């Protein structure tokens, strides 16, 4: 149908049928735009609003935003659509799916789309930390959009209650364990409040990568064909995580659900939680107590992986659609809009100059927590991403969950995951 409409529009243009009086919709370039929702808050409403604003400024382009579920659902839908010959022209997909999208020959690099100096400058305007997951082989395949890092939220009232300074979060692993002990409240067998919570359902590797980065280990190389899951420092990081629940008993046992972690925090069931900065607005709206936001504690160094989604332009888009897609992406990532998106959601505004806009400066002045993720950016590393990404991360996820549920010890589990990853990646050397 899209094809038909485009052909019609093109034919109309070619034959000169379109006159100044013709309705603009007939000549509009149409784009289907998949976007996922991964955090709390009215994201769909925001996207619809942005698209409406864009239409007002660019009547010759029609964007059809399609809410496509979680990040997982989105990559699945997009690749299924590519195979079925009905790909979207534009999508927001995890930055880590870059290799998968390249291997599937589904996307085009932005270097081929941009023209002129202004656009080249725009391509270079983002935080380098976010570009690590957006570039490979000297080309830029994704434009950072809803990007995040992991931060720690803490309940100031709980801190006060147990005699901790409510303004000072833990700075090191040892301190976090110590604070967590104080914050854990237990009556007999029943724990009514846990000290700290690091979610482990769905994509435990992302949270785990915080720990490995802080322990100064890198999980995968930049080419995406080699992993270091069995590095002793990685083993040590996992030991720390599992010890928090098994040995120290300050962290809920078993697998902790990602989706309900903010709710656990609001309910006062946990005093410190690790989750994405993308939840900032959600927490600000829903936490019934005073809370703080801090950089994650350090071991050898500070650290967090970046995360979140990039814009990708699909190969299936024709010349006009690619151009329109680029216009839209550029429009969505202007300093003003990047700032607004950050304020609306809690995602990190993706370029330094967004933080210099008046809106953002006013926002940070009134709500300093908003700047924590930005300040953590210099310590951030690329999120784990390899060829056959889903499969390789599943190997790691399974190992992490096996250890966290007490079925295996960290070292053998990670060795097994490493062997599996090497087997999968053999073809990419």
């Amino acid at each position, binding site marked *: 149908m899209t094809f038909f409409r485009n052909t019609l529009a093109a034919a109309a243009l070619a034959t000169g049928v379109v006159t100044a009086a013709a309705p603009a919709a007939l000549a509009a370039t149409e784009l289907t735009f998949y976007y996922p929702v991964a955090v709390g808050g009215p994201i769909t409403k925001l996207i619809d609003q942005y698209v409406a604003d864009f239409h007002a400024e660019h009547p010759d382009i029609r964007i059809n935003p399609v809410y496509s579920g979680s990040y*997982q659902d989105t*990559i*699945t839908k997009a*690749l*299924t659509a590519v195979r079925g010959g009905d790909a979207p022209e534009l999508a927001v997909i995890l930055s880590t799916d870059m290799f*998968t999208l390249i*291997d*599937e*020959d589904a996307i085009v690099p932005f270097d081929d789309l941009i023209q002129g100096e202004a656009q080249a400058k725009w391509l270079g305007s983002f935080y380098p930390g976010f570009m690590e997951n957006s570039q490979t082989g000297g080309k830029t395949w994704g434009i950072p959009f809803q990007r995040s890092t992991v931060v720690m939220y803490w309940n100031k009232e709980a801190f006060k209650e147990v005699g901790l300074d409510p303004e000072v979060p833990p700075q090191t692993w040892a301190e976090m364990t110590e604070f967590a002990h104080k914050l854990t409240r237990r009556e*007999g*067998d*029943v*724990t*009514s409040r846990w000290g700290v919570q690091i979610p*482990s*359902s*769905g994509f435990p590797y992302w949270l785990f990568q915080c720990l490995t980065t802080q322990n100064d280990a890198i999980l995968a190389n930049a080419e995406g064909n080699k992993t270091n899951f069995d590095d002793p420092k990685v083993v040590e990081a996992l030991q720390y995580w599992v010890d928090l629940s098994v040995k120290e008993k300050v962290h*809920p*046992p*078993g*697998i*902790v*659900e990602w989706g*309900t972690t903010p*709710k*656990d925090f609001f*309910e006062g*069931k946990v005093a410190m939680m690790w989750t994405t900065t993308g939840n900032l607005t959600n927490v600000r709206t829903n936490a019934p107590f005073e809370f703080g936001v801090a950089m994650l504690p350090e071991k050898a160094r500070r650290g967090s992986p970046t995360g979140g989604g990039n814009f990708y332009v699909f190969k299936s888009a024709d010349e006009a659609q690619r151009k329109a897609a680029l216009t839209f992406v550029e429009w969505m990532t202007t300093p003003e809009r990047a700032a607004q998106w950050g304020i609306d959601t809690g995602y990190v505004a993706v370029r330094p100059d967004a933080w210099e806009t008046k809106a953002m400066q006013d926002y940070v002045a009134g709500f300093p927590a908003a700047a924590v993720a930005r300040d953590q950016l210099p310590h951030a590393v690329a999120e784990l991403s390899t060829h*056959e990404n*889903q*499969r390789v991360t*599943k190997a790691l*996820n*399974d*190992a992490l*969950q*096996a250890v*966290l*549920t*007490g*079925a295996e010890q960290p070292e053998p589990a990670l060795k097994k995951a490493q062997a599996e990853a090497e087997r999968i990646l053999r073809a990419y050397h």
Partner: protein
Amino acid sequence: MARRMVHLYGWMLVFPAVVLLAAFTHVPAVATLWASLFTTARPNRPSRFAGLDAYRAMLDDPVFWQSLANNAVFAAATIPASVILALVMALLVNGRLRGRAAVRVAFFTPTVLPMIAVANIWLFFYTPSYGLLDQIAGLFGLPATNWLGSRETALGAVIAVAVWKEAGFFMIFYLAALQQIPQSLREAAALEGCGRWTFFRRVTLPLIMPTTLFVLINAIINAFRMIDHIIVMTRGGPDNTTSLLLFYIYEVGFKFWDTAYAAALTVVLLVILALVALGQFVILDRRTHYR
């Protein structure tokens, strides 16, 4: 001539069914078998014939074996539990019971709800600390349980959801069957001085055997087909303890994009289902009393 016309007439009558069955069942099944013999095409590596490689890889794939074992447990638990529960519920609401209509509706409601909604409701029931189950446990001073997050309870938790969802559906069939049993049989049995249990075992149960067969086949198919709640509640985790065969096929096919291997796994699923159906028709059919 007339005979040929009859033949033609017959073929014309079955034609729509044949076309539909072929297009949506037989051709895809054969195509799946065919696809499982080739490697997955990648943009830089075209598909090539690989024979039984995918099946050999399956033998070494621990996740496949675990999914198969999980599925066996899932089937062994959900099938008898949901069928027996359905029969008990049907007997209950078939009798003279106050508020019978309300009870029937209550039993049937889980069936009407979409599985995704059901799974989300149960997700809340199972939430540690403040979920419904733990709130009830808390009243008795019991500690919180991470139902979906520990390997001992996760599979049991998703089984409970499946039984809850299915029993009401099967109850409707049993209820219909029970209402077909003529009142005269009951009266005759009463005259003979036969007790309620004997009547149930000797009269009711044989008479509803065709329904039981139908329900059993459905229960088995569902045991291999229901994965919506897995996707919503656990995504196969923790560490594959709730990964069922079809869920694993979905993962391999649509997350890893290894379509050839997914096809091979699908063939295994087809073979299992075909064997089960065959066994049921051959063995149970003989013992089933059709009127």
